């Protein structure tokens, strides 16, 4: 394959001489050119990866949540917790009663490496025992430690004495 823009001085020179030079100095150019070609192809591959994520996110189905009773108000004392799973049995969550009328619920999976978080009553925060990641009880935001994102929040609805989980806010 000839090099783009390369002017041949002799029409008798075969094309392969461009890529398979007998001189080491010229060969160094060939090696660098091929290496840069490889790097650009790698860049193209990563761009395709980004496009793939974009296409997948466009066609991804929006998750739908069905309301599900998770507890009754009488079951949990103020400052108490209850563990439940929502929206699937593989999604552990933690429900906390902060005051007589205030309940909050979060995913129990730490956003760092998925250890189970627990409620630290004295500090009034959610703590992950694995790497000391702490989350705010107000909104699940990260207070300290390695977790990169807030805890997903489970939205709740109270119907009489029943507490229903109605969705998950990421």
């Amino acid at each position: 394959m000839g090099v783009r823009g390369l002017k041949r001085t002799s029409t008798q020179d075969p094309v392969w001489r461009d890529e398979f030079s007998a001189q080491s100095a010229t060969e160094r150019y060939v090696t660098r050119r091929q290496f840069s070609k490889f790097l650009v192809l790698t860049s193209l591959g990563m761009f395709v990866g980004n496009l793939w994520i974009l296409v997948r996110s466009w066609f991804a189905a929006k998750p739908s949540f069905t309301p599900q009773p998770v507890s009754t108000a009488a079951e949990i004392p103020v400052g108490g917790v209850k563990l439940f799973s929502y929206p699937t049995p593989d999604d552990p969550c933690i429900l906390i009663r902060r005051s007589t009328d205030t309940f909050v619920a979060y995913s129990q999976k730490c956003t760092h490496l998925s250890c189970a978080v627990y409620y630290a009553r004295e500090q009034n925060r959610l703590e992950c025992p694995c790497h000391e990641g702490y989350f705010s009880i107000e909104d699940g935001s990260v207070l300290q430690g390695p977790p990169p994102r807030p805890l997903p929040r489970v939205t709740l609805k109270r119907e009489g004495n029943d507490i229903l989980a109605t969705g998950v806010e990421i």
Partner: protein
Amino acid sequence: MTRGRGITAIDGAIALIAILLIVQMWLLTATLESYLAGHSEPIVPAAILSGLILAACAGLFLFIQRIDANIRSAEEPDSRHSSPSAPR
């Protein structure tokens, strides 16, 4: 342009491409990470940025090709025909 300066320019361009690639790799992993975590906001800007990085890499590649071609065409008449070991 001399061969030595040409090699230096090409090495510089390759180093720049390598730095851009590292940024692009980080971008891809960060985008994937946030996509899998359910966040779709950074996906479009990340794809655009990745495309710009690809364009920059392609531009540097063309630059390398041009330097390479210039030097080779400048040296070709004497270097090719003076070497006794060059296969004909």
